[in-house]
């Protein structure tokens, strides 16, 4: 009955879905406290036991020694009978054991053995303290470290949980479990790949895109995604393998924005800023206004102008891309993913604020999310952390200017 774990938590799940902290939860909780109380009672009874029943009188200590010596004498006799010990040696041994017995009865007279007497007043007080200590210590410590209300969550109960409430990691684990059984499902891999990107599991993203391509054949989106995952995996550098993937994507669809963006980035990283700028400019002009790639290209060009092409471009692109990828998800999951990412970045910067790139990314994220107040707050914190007059601080102010947060730049 105690171990009805999966059953009990199944109830919890329903309870949680219909009404948070439903009736079953409370019932289960009551049941737990009743059982805990019963255990405590049993423990207290164990402490009281010597007082509850009549005592058998113990044998005095010297009786035990005497019995050992008697056993030794008997063993000696047996060994003599077997011929293992000569009679003269046995006599000597017997004499020695006899001497020990003699010494024993002498020493016993000195130490009064019968001093064990039941229940003085002090003893009773100790006993009462001991009995009271059991519930006091156990309930005291348990209330500090226990989590009595938390229901068990065995595998089945977890799988039955409402997916809408689960964090992204769980959804991914679910998808992985599904794909382990259905490895031929292209749509599964195609959905999972961008999610891996967002979670920072770039190697898994590479594998997932590769798998999708293997199953469904060449496809510009998959190839471009594969290339991007490879770039992310190598820390923002467009490797030869990644460039090959982008070229394959362009061969199938010469207008693929993602592939073109990264081909340009490859040029920039090779030091060929002119070629990079040409591609980005051509690309920006051909894209509709709301495309995230248009903004990315514009920023990359701006970054190129500041002669820090690699850093800013590679920083900005994936985050833009992550947002784009998020559009393929369910609304709840997307919201949670974005909020989670930004919140974790914010928290990270509160802990270690000496990170100029991080502040830049945080500003951009808040602007993109339309949370202008948060962006201004982040700018304030970033400037005070980096120092408004330091080169990093100035770069941040400049970025704030390009993002349209100029007013605060003046104030601070």
């Amino acid at each position, binding site marked *: 009955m105690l171990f009805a774990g999966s059953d009990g938590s199944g109830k919890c799940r329903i309870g949680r879905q219909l009404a948070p902290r439903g009736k079953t939860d409370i019932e289960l909780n009551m049941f737990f406290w009743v059982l805990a109380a019963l255990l405590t009672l049993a423990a207290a009874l164990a402490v009281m036991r010597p007082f509850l029943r009549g005592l058998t009188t113990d044998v005095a*200590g010297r009786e035990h020694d005497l019995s050992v010596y008697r056993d030794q004498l008997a063993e000696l006799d047996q060994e003599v009978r077997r011929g293992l010990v000569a009679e003269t040696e046995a006599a000597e041994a017997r004499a020695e054991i006899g001497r020990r017995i003699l010494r024993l009865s002498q020493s016993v007279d000195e130490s009064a053995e019968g001093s064990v007497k039941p229940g003085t007043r002090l003893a009773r007080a100790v006993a009462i303290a001991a009995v009271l200590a059991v519930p006091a210590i156990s309930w005291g410590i348990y209330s500090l470290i226990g989590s009595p209300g938390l229901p068990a969550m065995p595998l089945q109960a977890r799988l039955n949980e409402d997916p809408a409430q689960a964090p992204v990691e769980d959804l991914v684990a679910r998808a992985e479990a599904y794909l382990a059984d259905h490895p031929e499902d292209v749509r599964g891999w195609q959905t999972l790949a961008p999610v891996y990107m967002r979670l920072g599991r770039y190697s898994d993203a590479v594998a997932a895109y590769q798998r999708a391509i293997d199953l469904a054949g060449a496809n510009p989106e998959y190839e471009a995604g594969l290339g991007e995952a490879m770039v992310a995996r190598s820390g923002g550098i467009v490797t030869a393998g990644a460039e090959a993937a982008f070229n394959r994507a362009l061969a199938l669809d010469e207008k693929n924005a993602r592939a073109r963006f990264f081909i340009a980035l490859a040029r920039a990283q090779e030091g060929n800023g002119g070629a990079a700028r040409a591609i980005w400019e051509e690309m920006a002009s051909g894209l509709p206004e709301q495309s995230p790639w248009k903004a990315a290209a514009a920023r990359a060009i701006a970054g190129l102008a500041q002669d820090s092409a690699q850093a800013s471009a590679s920083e900005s692109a994936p985050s833009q891309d992550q947002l784009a990828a998020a559009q393929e998800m369910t609304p709840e999951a997307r919201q949670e993913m974005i909020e989670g990412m930004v919140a974790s970045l914010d928290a990270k910067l509160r802990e270690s604020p000496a990170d100029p790139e991080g502040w830049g990314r945080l500003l951009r994220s808040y602007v993109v999310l339309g949370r202008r107040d948060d962006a201004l707050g982040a700018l304030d914190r970033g400037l005070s952390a980096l120092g408004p007059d330091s080169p990093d601080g100035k770069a941040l102010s400049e970025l704030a200017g390009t993002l349209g947060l100029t007013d605060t730049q003046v104030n601070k």
Partner: protein
Amino acid sequence: MSVELGHFALVLALALALVQALVPLLGARLGSAPLMRMGEPVAITGFALIAFAFAALVLAYVQSDFSVLNVWENSHSAKPLLFKITGTWGNHEGSMLLWVLILAFFGALVAAFGQNLPPTLRANVLAIQGLIASAFLLFILFTSNPFIRLERAPIEGRDLNPILQDIGLAIHPPLLYLGYVGFSISFSFAVAALIDGRLDAAWARWVRPWTLVAWAFLTGGIAMGSYWAYYELGWGGFWFWDPVENASLMPWLAGTALLHSAIVMEKRSALKIWTVLLAILTFSLSLLGTFLVRSGVLTSVHSFATDPTRGVFILAILVFFIGGALALFAVRGASLAPGGLFHPISREGALVFNNLMLTTAAATVLIGTLYPLLIEAISEDKISVGAPFFNLTFVPLFLPLLLAVPFGPLLAWKRGDLPGALQRLQFAFWAAGAAAIASYFLIDRANAAAALGIGLGLWLVFGALTDLAFKSGIGKVGPALALRRLSGLPLSMFGTCFAHAGLGLTVLGIVSVTALQAEKILTMQPGQSTEISGYTLRFVDLRPFTGPNYTEDRAEFALGTTRGASLGELVSSKRLYTARGMPTTEAGIRTMGLSQLYVSIGDRTPAGLVVRIWWKPFVTLIWAGALVMMGGGFISLMDRRLRVGAPARRKAALAADGGGTR
């Protein structure tokens, strides 16, 4: 809910352990019988509560309840059921819980079967047990709690370290802990006697069975650990002088010494102080072993600092118990009455020699294990003390001990007859010598060390048998009478014989593997064959295979003799456990008689698959010998004489005994 109830039961067990630690001690001071007896029901109830907590944790593992942090960190829902259960103690928190479970189990045994102990001794022993349990329960609850919960249970767990996903985890740690923790009883008896200031013949009788139990389990635990490392790590070695292994060897050496000195104390009232000291040292070494393995000190002194609470807590426990016991020993030890005198050439003398050698060997291992840690702590240098150090120090210490083992049981108490013993051992000596010479000429006429080693192993086996033969009078009396005498011998004599003969078997195995094994490393293409020690091995193919939570490349080999007879198939594989992305090797082992053919595969290269093949003659004797030793321990334990009869039961027991021998 069962998890939380288990957590609560564990906290409750702590409360009971504190009561058990304090009240009986107070009772002994106040002279109150009920207070002194309180330890017994409390110890038994405490064991029941810890067992409940442990069962709750096992259940959480079986159900893959990842709302428990510990389960999530060390389990995976795709793991086979057996490894879900054994995974419970395949991690720090769970293994500490197993440790206290066994501690409480031994405490409960003393409470249940210690009715014949003098009341103050019983009260003190249970109090010391309660003190140890309190310390470890506090440690578990506040630094290594396996019942910490997660608000949101993740869908999938992080899986257990693949090396631990093996049947070995089901056997090795429980046996080892039964050994380690079993010595806590000897320790409690020693400290209780020091508190009482009384140490007598009866004390030695009570301590011996507990020491014997712990020793037998520890022997088995070490042997199983060695065999596990042998087949799982894929290096083909059976002992690596690894600090973790040394940590289990030290209490074994000290425990073996304790076992023997307790005999002297019981029979001759001599070596009392020494026995008490050994009892304290043995458990101290067990604690030290737990500390070294559990605190992370061994991987590096610096990793110790990454989790300071845990390490400092264990260190405090160590200082408290070892320091406290030794301080008590210093104060009270001198007041214990010294025992009987004996001649150097006597059973006592032989046992003293045994004790000297064993404790020196234990000290050597201790130095070899701690010295690198000390150097690293002081100078940041990392040095490793490996097999060469131990071969140079441990082996020379152990050789004279092994040579002397057969003499011990043949010498008389008090004053022995060395020429007589030599005469009795003649047969064993010549038989072992003949075997050594024969093996010298049979093998290659070059390996004298191997021949001498084989002679030494057989000397131990024959010496042990000689003792039994002599005691039953074989050769002196008719075979019928000798047989009757043999069956009438006390079981403890058989125990001695088995333990000593088992030691000989282990020595035989170690010597033949170290000196005579053949090794071959090569790259193989499918279809290629190779020969080793009279066997041919043909590499058939490398095939992928998917297990429940791993994928593996299986290399299949066809095994045959060089004369062409087929011996079937041998599979060796490289596994990748997907959840952790960790590879393991699964060696292919074929046992033929007492010897084994051991195949382990390496990486694929353009030239083919890297294959390592060993022919290990008589390798199984190493562990079989240890099992025989363990068996000897249990046979000895069944001896009625070791189970001390209560004074009230004495007459009946004597009568039964007399009837049996007449």
